């Protein structure tokens, strides 16, 4: 039995369908991140789980019990909002204890729970302040504390870190990870930040246009993106997408004469009617999968390839050197070692392994094989 079971959830506003059948089953203690750009339906799904919105069809079960039509307060969930939604007129102490107060938990017990949560979050000195007297990070902690004391079955987070500055975001991210490791509660977490998703999640659901593009562990999402969209969304800088043409069992980079041998694992494709000669495909290569190689090795190598490129822009970010290059007319970005000797205008070569090549059908956006 799953801790949270989302079954074929649909939601439409009039003729517009914002959720087109979502299915997710979560085990207890899982940290699910709903990842997507704004308008993909991830917040709507979260609100449906919380009971703040109603699904048009489908079912949601928490610990086996359907919660459709159940009032939010009776769903055994807690939610942390993007704006924190702290009660501005109540003290931090009362904010944290509010859920217990409403459930008529005796004062002593309440005090104990508040103390415990505030110790865990290191906000004990702030208990008697009003939210307006807190910094952004402190407010965030209070909001989390308010969810914590309730000890719910499921935690819901709606972009909780997006209002923080970069440094605090990093800090709170670690904090959340730590808390999850301690508490082991089931979490559903909405964000558009792929780093947050990668670092926090046990599983990620990448959403687009009301559908789940891919549901999998961070490793799967990163290493085996199921669609062009996922491949482009996860990873920074994003995966290079190169137009290639199938040419006599090899891949020719469109606009140039550079040809790559088709790696063995894609061979079966040629047998099927899926890929024929002259079929256009998208070749995906992550920037971090590219290494600097010497130009005279250009061509197919054992288990890999060396591509001749012309360097256009070189940017040192600190830990790495980001080189934007051209191969024929097409653009290729590589994350190189910071000391790589390469300069603007250089003619150079990038090496890549067979394993790091991804192929997509540009018409459907689906990955070919895996």
């Amino acid at each position, binding site marked *: 039995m799953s801790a949270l079971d989302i079954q074929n959830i649909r939601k439409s506003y009039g003729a517009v369908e914002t959720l087109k059948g979502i299915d997710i089953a979560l085990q207890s203690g899982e940290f699910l991140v709903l990842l997507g750009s704004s308008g993909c339906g991830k917040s709507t799904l979260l609100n449906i789980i919380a*009971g*703040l*919105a*109603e699904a048009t069809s489908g079912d949601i079960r928490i610990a086996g019990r359907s919660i459709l*039509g159940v*009032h*939010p307060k009776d769903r055994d969930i807690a939610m942390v909002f993007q704006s924190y939604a702290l009660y501005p007129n109540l003290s931090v102490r009362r904010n944290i204890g509010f859920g217990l107060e409403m459930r008529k938990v005796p004062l002593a017990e309440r005090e104990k729970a508040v103390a415990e949560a505030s110790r865990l979050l290191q906000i004990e000195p702030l208990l008697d302040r009003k939210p307006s007297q807190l910094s952004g990070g402190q407010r965030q902690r209070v909001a989390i504390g308010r969810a914590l004391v309730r000890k719910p079955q499921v935690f819901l987070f709606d972009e909780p870190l997006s209002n923080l500055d970069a440094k605090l975001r990093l800090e709170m991210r670690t904090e959340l990870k730590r808390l999850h490791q301690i508490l082991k509660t089931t979490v559903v977490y909405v964000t558009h930040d792929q780093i947050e998703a990668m670092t926090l999640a046990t599983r990620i659901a990448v959403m687009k246009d009301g559908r789940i593009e891919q549901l999998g562990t961070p490793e799967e999402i990163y290493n085996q993106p199921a669609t062009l969209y996922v491949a482009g969304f996860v990873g920074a800088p994003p995966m290079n997408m190169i137009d290639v043409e199938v040419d006599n069992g090899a891949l020719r980079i469109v606009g140039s004469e550079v040809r790559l041998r088709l790696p063995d694992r894609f061979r079966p494709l040629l047998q099927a009617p899926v890929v024929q000669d002259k079929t256009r495909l998208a070749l995906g290569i992550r920037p971090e999968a590219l290494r600097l190689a010497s130009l005279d090795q250009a061509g197919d190598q054992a288990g890999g390839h060396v591509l001749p490129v012309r360097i256009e822009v070189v940017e040192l970010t600190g830990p790495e050197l980001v080189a934007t290059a051209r191969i024929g007319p097409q653009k290729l970005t590589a994350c190189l070692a910071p000391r790589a000797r390469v300069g603007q205008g250089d003619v150079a070569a990038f090496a890549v392994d067979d394993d790091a090549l991804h192929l997509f059908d540009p018409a459907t956006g689906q990955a070919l094989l895996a």
Partner: protein
Amino acid sequence: MSGSWMTTRAWLLMLPLLAVMISVIGWPLVDTVRLSFTDARLVGTEGSFVGLDNYARMLSGANFQRTLVTTTWFAVISVAAEMVLGVLAALLLNQQFYGRTVLRALMILPWALPTVVNATLWRLIYNPEYGALNAALTQAGLLDAYRSWLGEPNTALAALIVADCWKNFPLVALIALAALQAVPRDITAASMVDGAGPIARFRFVILPYLVGPLLVALVLRTIEAFKVFDIIWVMTRGGPANSTRTLSILVYQEAFSFQRAGSGASLALIVTLLVTVLAVAYAALVRKAAGSAS
């Protein structure tokens, strides 16, 4: 927690307001429509159905046409003057000078003064024999002999407009001032760097921020000016020679002095229709302005 349940709850919460509004506005309005087709009198007779007679009589009467012209003059001039004076005052109050805070606070004075008190005050000021205006103007040598400000048709309406403006332009000024303060400093600074002079700056940088709030103020003030009753009732009762009789005064006369509830109702509805047409036209204007601003 279903959507329809939330809507039901919202209606329940609206219910008290709607119930009261229907009983004190909705029902009377419907009844006014009914009355307007009868020859009912205020006291006594219930009246019988007379069709559109009342409307025909009221619309064709010279009284109505003249009153409509008077009302329009009053509304157009007083509202226009309030807008211009209001914006000028706001521009002034947005400058730095000694006593600015105090002056800003004082701007609320005329607005807070009850309309009837304002009207009474100005009637005393305009008094032909002992009024302060005559005294001040003659003592300053601007006037040879005392004048009957509210007794001459060509000055009575103007005198009313001055009194109305004095009370209402500070409100426009306060609204405009709030809008001025919302103009980002960056933008005025940028325009100065770009070499815009004060007039170009007002036209292209400041005015766009004022247009929205001013249009709203314009709509509200125009509707109010068309409905004007209190100030005229207290100051002139429509005289001299009916030169300041506005639509509301005419309706009062018809429905209450002459007790012809039926034709009074028809006249009231004609006024309502006029104001509605005006408001709808303005609303379109506001929407257009909002559209072009964004």
